[in-house]
């Protein structure tokens, strides 16, 4: 591992690898691609949330002979999308479990003919009673999934919670809720598929995880590995939304390609994308916390419930991450945490940046401010008294071995935001002003990479090869969708090999070309894959020194000359490595005990808000984000990730509401699903503390998801500071503010501020 002063390329703001193509408008997204003889596909979807399909009829006004029509009966393999639990059909067969569930597929050479045709397929249902809330699902009066609606549950216990209550100075309870959130990547979901009996299925698409799609296609088509190929095209944003859904869409397009004998493109329009694809899991978290007189946490009992939607998809792993982020960056000797994910009849909820952590952290960090208020301690001080330090253990009794610098992050955040002075100023100004200002804080961590034994189980394989044209290629299945995968991994390879950034390229993200280095999720790319690439580079240098006369020091020209000598001897120049777990990672999946993550990124965020008590609008006026994410490989990209995540977090807190009507998203347009615009985002001040992590790529830990964790609690804590009213549910829209402030009116008049 190197220190910042000894690297040339890592740590430098090199131009984004695919940046010029994107700026010239020539980067090739899936909808920019046409294949010869290509047809277009469309989906006939369920119009009811739950029921049996009684009949399917085709209106005579359409000449159906022009169309390819696919139903579940056309599926050559298993009618199931492979993910974790095999419960989600590729096409509904006799029964639907959510609105917009795919029932039948159509393809036609002219895409403008499809809309009318979709409307001309008439489906009759026998409706069954749906479930739309976590509470109904918990009651289990109606079973919509399995025998009990329970998609997954975890129980985590530490110490002895039951005997802790007796010693408490105070016991504080609270309930916190978060809503669904749409990814709103600007490029909608889309794929192109081809099929032939000889070469099988080929899919190009906007996606995060080529090998997830590969696995899904193999099962649906019952094909061997060499007959399925998945190629990621330039991807216009994903944020988790293109982790699992593309598997379904790819299977649909490929079925149509097989049936029609033509390449088939399926690109959703915005309304279909919003209505039919995954969102962030809504949650309800109940906290019961015992503290002593000084505000030390004595016991936490947490009951976390997530709405998983109609099928299991990724709910178990989202719940796992929610569980492991529920107790915050604090020391607490006694914990009982019950987490459950419940089935309902909504479109299945899926992965979204943070993956359960934003929900859990919203509850914990909001609750910390309520504890502080209840015992009359400053919220900053309460956090400081309970922070984890090196040598402490967290909820899973993982020993903190790596540096934990929460105090330092907190001090810096307070200083940069001028927290105390601003708070004092607002306390003076608020009483006479219709606009109430406040400051709020959130302290949190985000675990990097897969949970527990997840990375060992993934067993990722990645590396580099050297092409005869004198370029090194990075061989990974990890994809670029804006976060900077291409740039970061080529920086790492160029640095480790001692060659120029321009001498390294990315191999095409094509399962026919690159090995399976796992999915591009869970903030794992820089840390886990970066480390694999770094090791593969060292391994290649050793080979070249041993077998091709590479000197102890060398120029890039000497490096490539040695590669050619090696090629002459061995045919190819390639170096692959498998994931190696850092030492001491022991995880017990049954007890949820041990090393939950190889590393944690740590952060303290501060929000300044203004609440207008005339218009009931809340605005974030300023935002500070201080974090420790290991080594920062590319400062501009890293800050861009943090800022983008914070903007999404602001939307999560104050703007973005999915409106449901009988199980269907009613506001499935950009006109009425509102994300923050250029005029809504505040100045965002990003700072990093850097402590290189020795088992991450050039010292990196994960950072992509971290910034979505902190904004919502920091903002709602700031609103509490501004108004004296605790709001415990997001999104918090003006009508919610109005109701909350109106209800609190009498209390507020007697309050001190």
């Amino acid at each position, binding site marked *: 591992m190197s220190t910042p002063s000894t690297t040339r390329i890592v740590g430098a703001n090199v131009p*984004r690898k695919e940046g*010029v193509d994107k700026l010239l408008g020539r*980067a090739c*997204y899936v*909808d920019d691609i046409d294949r010869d003889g290509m047809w277009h596909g469309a989906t006939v979807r369920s119009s009811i949330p739950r029921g049996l399909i009684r009949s399917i009829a085709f209106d005579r006004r359409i000449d159906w002979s022009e169309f390819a029509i696919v139903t579940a009966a056309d599926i050559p393999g298993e009618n199931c999308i492979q993910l974790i639990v095999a419960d989600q059909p590729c096409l509904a067969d006799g029964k639907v479990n959510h609105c917009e569930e795919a029932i039948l597929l159509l393809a036609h050479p002219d895409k403008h003919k499809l809309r009318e045709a979709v409307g001309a397929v008439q489906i009759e249902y026998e409706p069954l009673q749906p479930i739309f809330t976590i509470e109904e699902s918990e009651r289990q009066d109606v079973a919509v999934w399995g025998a009990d609606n329970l998609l997954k549950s975890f129980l985590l216990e530490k110490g002895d919670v039951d005997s802790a209550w007796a010693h408490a100075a105070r016991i504080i309870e609270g309930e916190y809720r978060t809503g669904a959130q749409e990814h709103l990547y*600007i490029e909608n979901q889309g794929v192109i598929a081809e099929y032939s009996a000889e070469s099988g299925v080929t899919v190009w698409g906007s996606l995060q995880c080529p090998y997830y799609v590969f696995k899904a296609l193999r099962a649906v088509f019952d094909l061997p590995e060499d007959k399925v190929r998945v190629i990621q095209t330039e991807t216009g944003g994903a944020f988790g939304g293109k982790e699992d859904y593309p598997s379904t869409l790819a299977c649909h397009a490929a079925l149509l390609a097989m049936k029609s004998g033509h390449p088939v493109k399926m690109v959703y329009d915005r309304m279909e994308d919003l209505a039919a694809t995954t969102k962030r899991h809504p949650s309800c978290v109940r906290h019961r916390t015992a503290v002593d007189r000084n505000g030390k946490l004595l016991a936490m009992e947490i009951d976390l419930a997530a709405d998983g939607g109609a099928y299991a998809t990724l709910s178990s792993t989202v719940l796992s991450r929610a569980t492991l982020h529920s107790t915050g960056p604090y020391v607490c000797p006694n914990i009982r945490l019950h987490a459950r994910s419940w089935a309902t009849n909504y479109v299945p909820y899926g992965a979204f940046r943070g993956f359960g952590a934003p929900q859990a952290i919203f509850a914990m960090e909001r609750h910390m401010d309520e504890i502080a208020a209840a015992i009359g301690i400053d919220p900053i001080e309460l956090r400081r008294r309970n922070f984890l330090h090196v040598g402490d253990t967290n909820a899973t009794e993982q020993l903190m071995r790596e540096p934990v610098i929460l105090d330092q992050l907190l001090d810096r955040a307070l200083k940069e935001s001028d927290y105390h002075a601003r708070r004092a100023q607002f306390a003076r100004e608020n009483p006479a002003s219709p606009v109430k200002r406040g400051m709020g804080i959130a302290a949190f961590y985000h675990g990097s990479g897969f949970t527990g034994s997840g990375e060992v189980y993934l067993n990722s394989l990645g590396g580099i090869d050297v092409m005869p044209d004198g370029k090194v290629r990075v061989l990974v299945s990890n994809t670029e969708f804006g976060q900077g995968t291409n740039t970061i991994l080529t920086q790492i390879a160029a640095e480790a090999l001692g060659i120029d950034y321009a001498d390294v390229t990315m191999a095409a993200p094509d399962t026919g070309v690159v090995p399976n280095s796992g999915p591009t999720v869970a903030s794992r790319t820089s840390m886990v894959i970066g480390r694999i690439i770094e090791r593969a580079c060292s391994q290649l240098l050793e080979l070249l020194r041993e077998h091709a006369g590479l000197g102890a020091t060398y120029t890039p020209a000497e490096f490539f000359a040695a590669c050619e000598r090696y090629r002459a001897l061995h045919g190819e120049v390639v170096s692959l490595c498998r994931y190696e777990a850092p030492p001491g990672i022991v995880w017990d999946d049954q007890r949820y005990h041990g090393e939950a993550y190889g590393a944690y990124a740590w952060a303290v965020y501060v929000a300044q808000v203004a609440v207008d008590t005339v218009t009931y609008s809340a605005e974030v006026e300023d935002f500070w984000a201080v974090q420790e994410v290991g080594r920062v490989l590319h400062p501009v990209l890293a800050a*861009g990730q943090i800022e983008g995540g914070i903007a999404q977090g602001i939307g999560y807190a104050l703007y973005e509401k999915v409106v449901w009507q009988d199980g269907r998203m009613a506001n499935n347009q950009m006109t009425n699903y509102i994300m923050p615009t*250029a005029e809504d985002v505040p100045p*965002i001040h990003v700072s990093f503390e850097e402590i290189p992590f020795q088992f991450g790529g050039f010292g990196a830990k994960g950072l992509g998801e971290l910034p979505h964790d902190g904004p919502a609690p920091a903002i709602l804590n700031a609103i509490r500071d501004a108004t004296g009213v605790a709001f415990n549910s997001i999104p918090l829209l003006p009508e919610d503010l109005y109701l909350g402030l109106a209800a609190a009116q009498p209390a507020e008049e007697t309050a001190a501020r």
Partner: protein
Amino acid sequence: MSTNESATSSKRWPAIRFNVNSEARIVKVPPMKRLLDVLREDLHLTGTKEGCGEGECGSCSIRMNGELVNSCLVPVLQVEGADIQTVEGLALDGALHPLQEAFLCHGGAQCGICTPGMLMAAAQLLERSPNPDMPQIREALAGNLCRCTGFIRIFESVAAAVDAQSASPATKLTTEQMHHAR
């Protein structure tokens, strides 16, 4: 200037003539076809993107007779005789436009899908007011949604392009950059 007739033209439709990136073009397509689709499908200029199809996201932004418009809302019959500029017309003679240069250096593009529209909105701003302040930059970009960047680095890129424009002309692209392929 060359005159290219769209390959997918059909005799059934009247010819519509307009300039795209200083090139005269003729298309024979249904007059209500969206300009966005004509650019992408008939003229194969796929740099202009569709994000919403209803005038909300700005990723289809182009310039038409010096105005910024959402090409998803414009039926092609309205462009008869118009001058259209798309992202493909920003970089000229092998040089990145100062805005493109600035977006590249300052992290203004992440996934890149909003970028063509964002560049056109920014280009429009710089033509109207060569020295915009931050509120003007924010206002000018308010019709263009970016889900990746949180806008901060886009603002910085535009501000940097303003500085660069007053300082030096655009740099030539290296051959490697122009022919860069993944």
